[in-house]
């Protein structure tokens, strides 16, 4: 078996386009009360961080995508994006890539 490396994963889960987001809408309506105008299209979501040990980045990404699709997101109303980076690099895996 190939030696495995540790990867940091960031999964972002958000409601699909067209699915009403009462939480995002409520946040958006609250902004003018702070005097903050010009903000639109607020959508609330969730993010998850975890580590995966895998031989390479592709395998880590494949497993992370399964985790996102089968548990973290409900495909009926949500979609997810997955970002994977070697854990040895300091900091976060960065912004999620295109939808998984």
């Amino acid at each position, binding site marked *: 078996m190939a030696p495995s490396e540790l990867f940091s994963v960031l999964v972002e889960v958000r409601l699909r386009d067209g699915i*009403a987001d*009462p939480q995002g809408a409520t946040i958006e309506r609250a902004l003018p009360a702070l005097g903050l105008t010009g903000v639109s299209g607020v959508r609330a979501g969730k993010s998850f961080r975890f580590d995966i040990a895998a031989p390479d980045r592709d395998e880590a990404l494949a497993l992370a995508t399964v985790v996102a699709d089968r548990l973290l997101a409900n495909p*009926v109303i949500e979609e997810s994006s997955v970002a994977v980076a070697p854990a040895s690099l300091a900091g976060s895996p960065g912004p999620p890539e295109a939808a998984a």
Partner: protein
Amino acid sequence: MAPRVGVVLFPGTNCEYDAVQAVQRLGGAADLVWHGDTSVAGYDALILPGGFAHGDYLRPGAIARFSPIMDAVGRFAADGGPVVGICNGFQVLTEAGLLPGALQKNRGLRFLCATVAVRVETSDSVLTAGVPVGAELRIPINHFEGNYTCDERTLAVLRAEDRVVLRYVDNPNGSVDSIAGVCNEARNVVGLMPHPERASDPMLGSVDGSVLLHALLRSAEPQATATVA
């Protein structure tokens, strides 16, 4: 022999005794079934009651779907056994893929606790057999995530196949097409957000929920001799 109903208890379920008592008041037998069990043998019908299974962590029903009992619930449903999910139980059944759609946060982000009117839309389900279409029932709702959602294709199928079981008379939570309850293709699995067990005694202000639970017990009778799962 009275039909025997298994009431599935997850950690965080909180309506299990209401369901047991409502069934018993109608002459049925009822037991609690722990979520860690792997068999529902001996039951003629199953109820997944309301509450917050596994704390509603991640999403309501998202973790409950992996409870050991759910394989047995799935087999029982596949064999035609009547299964009813009430409130959180409805959420569990959608997450488990036994019913279509999903329940998301109420429009307006309010937790709703009120007695509402729902209309029976089909008599062809284990929860509404013998109940006339158009009957209006007053039953409490008690939820934050009861806003029924599905894609347009699923909605078209539900309508075409007469699988919308209950609709709100006055949509309280933003549910698509005012849907309060749906059934599966075989019509033996029903999920609904209203709590019929909380409208099962005059002391509770309404007995309209008994109409549905009575239909469930009637639906359960033909299975009484079969041993399932």
